[in-house]
């Protein structure tokens, strides 16, 4: 067999995720303690788990409607109305997807054809560019900077818009930087987009994890933006339901209608048990979510202080569960830093460069760990820095 001949060039050209590459290194070092996990350390709240058990006992194991259980779609729409004050029709403007990931995939596949450009603020999650490339589109990175708190600015956006621009990915709260876009920041972006034909895929999977008092704001709330926004979110992060694989996309009917066809042929319908559990998650787990957010917030402050104290400048992230300290003062590249840290001190963090070229000089640290785990790991990083001070 000549497998290479079988595989189209554009598939062969896709690079494995830089996160994945680092995972392979981490796996071969014994006794590693990790600060690299992008999922909650909490278990799914009991009310959601209990509902899943109930549903299994009742034998509700068939497919659901393609776009998901109507009851879940209604529940999601009620939630969005309360959370971001934006109304969607549960019949025609929501699809329940296999994680936020599938929603991202649907959005890009439904919109992009060869020649189209997709704007991707970086550093950001790793999937946007490869999916764009598979569709024959071009991902155009927009560099965000620490001095702007890694926010997307209107000026940077304007500079990259061309007649070919079709889609803007808006990944906030951001993985890996922890940056958030506040109302005024979004208003400035909306001002740039309102008179264009550009769609925003707003990846708000970390929306519940926004700190320092102000709640999350969605670009869909801004005047004139609902009609050009695909709001993507899910249950993985907020409800600690990563393994249930459930997310959703809400947006204007003409777009959702097209995306639903892709979803139907690829997925059929999202996992039924997960969908029932998700209804319980939204309806019964507010207190659990509140508790988790408070925990993350405490750890966030601990870790930010930890890095600043050891001399690695760390802007204060206001969302998600990552901090993104700058390691340029060590004279190492992100990859060098991470490899040395894992071999010498057995602590795994992810090089910022895995999230786009502009992540170089930074590392991503997750604080989805217990306080004791965090203090141990921070202690080792401190030792590491001291040992490398005079190198």
């Amino acid at each position: 067999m000549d497998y290479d001949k079988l595989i189209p060039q554009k598939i062969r050209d896709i690079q494995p995720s830089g996160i994945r590459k680092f995972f392979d290194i981490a796996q071969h070092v014994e006794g590693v303690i990790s600060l690299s996990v992008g999922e909650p350390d909490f278990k799914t709240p009991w009310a959601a788990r209990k509902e899943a058990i109930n549903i299994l006992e009742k034998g509700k194991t068939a497919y659901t409607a393609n776009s998901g259980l109507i009851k879940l779609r209604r529940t999601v729409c009620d939630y969005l109305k309360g959370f971001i004050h934006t109304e969607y029709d549960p019949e025609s403007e929501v699809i329940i997807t296999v994680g936020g990931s599938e929603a991202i995939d649907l959005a890009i596949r439904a919109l992009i054809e060869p020649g189209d450009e997709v704007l991707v603020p970086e550093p950001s999650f790793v999937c946007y560019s490869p999916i764009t490339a598979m569709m024959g589109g071009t991902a155009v990175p927009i560099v965000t900077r620490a001095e702007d708190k890694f926010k997307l600015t209107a000026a940077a956006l304007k500079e990259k818009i061309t007649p070919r621009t079709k889609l803007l990915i808006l990944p906030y709260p951001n993985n890996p930087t922890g940056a958030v876009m506040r109302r005024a920041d979004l208003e400035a972006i909306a001002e740039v987009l309102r008179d264009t034909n550009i769609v925003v895929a707003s990846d708000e999977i970390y929306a519940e994890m926004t700190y320092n008092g102000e709640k999350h704001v969605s670009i869909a709330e801004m005047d004139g933006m609902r009609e050009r926004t695909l709001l993507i979110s899910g249950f993985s992060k907020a409800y600690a339901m990563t393994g249930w694989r459930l997310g959703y996309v809400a947006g204007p009917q003409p777009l959702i209608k097209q995306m639903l066809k892709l979803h139907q042929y690829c997925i059929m319908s999202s996992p039924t048990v997960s969908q029932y559990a998700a209804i319980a998650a939204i309806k019964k787990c507010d207190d659990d979510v509140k508790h988790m957010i408070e925990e993350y917030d405490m750890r966030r402050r601990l870790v930010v202080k930890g890095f600043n104290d050891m001399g690695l400048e760390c802007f204060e992230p206001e969302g998600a569960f990552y901090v993104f300290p700058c390691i340029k003062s060590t004279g190492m590249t992100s990859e060098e830093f991470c490899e040395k840290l894992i071999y010498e001190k057995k602590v795994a963090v992810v090089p910022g460069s895995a999230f786009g070229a502009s992540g170089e000089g930074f590392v991503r640290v997750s604080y989805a760990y217990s306080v004791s785990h965090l203090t141990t790991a921070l202690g080792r990083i401190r030792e590491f820095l001291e040992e490398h001070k005079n190198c």
Partner: protein
Amino acid sequence: MNTNKLLDLLRQNARLSDAELAAMLGESEDAVAKELKRLEDDGIIMGYSAIINEEKVDENGVTAIIELKITPVKDCGFDDLAHTIMEYEEVDSVFLLSGANDLSVTINGASLRNVALFVSERLAVLDGVLSTTTHFILRRYKEKGHIFNEDNFDDRGLVSP
């Protein structure tokens, strides 16, 4: 100051520095130090101790939980006897229980024999003790929220998106 949160953090890890506690609670280091002193002065925080996997320190050492049935005394109930027992140095903790038994006494001893002798010679003979039931701890799985296991309980991968 959120005192409940402060106490929660200390329950999990009493070695956090004032500075770390302050960062997590969004308070100043001074305010945390002051609050800790108040909690100590008021007898809310009684002390700070480590959670130790005793089996790894001394293979032969044993911990026993001894449940006692005792006769309550007019006016002071079970207090008198509880006070006598808690004065024994060997005794680690004493609790009054609801249910079938009255007192639960925890003892750390150098050996099974040691503990058995302590029960028969010091506890069982006390006036008012009707019966004793001794349970030896054979394995510790979890204590004060800490899981005693070599295996990593984190079933998440080392690195993920």
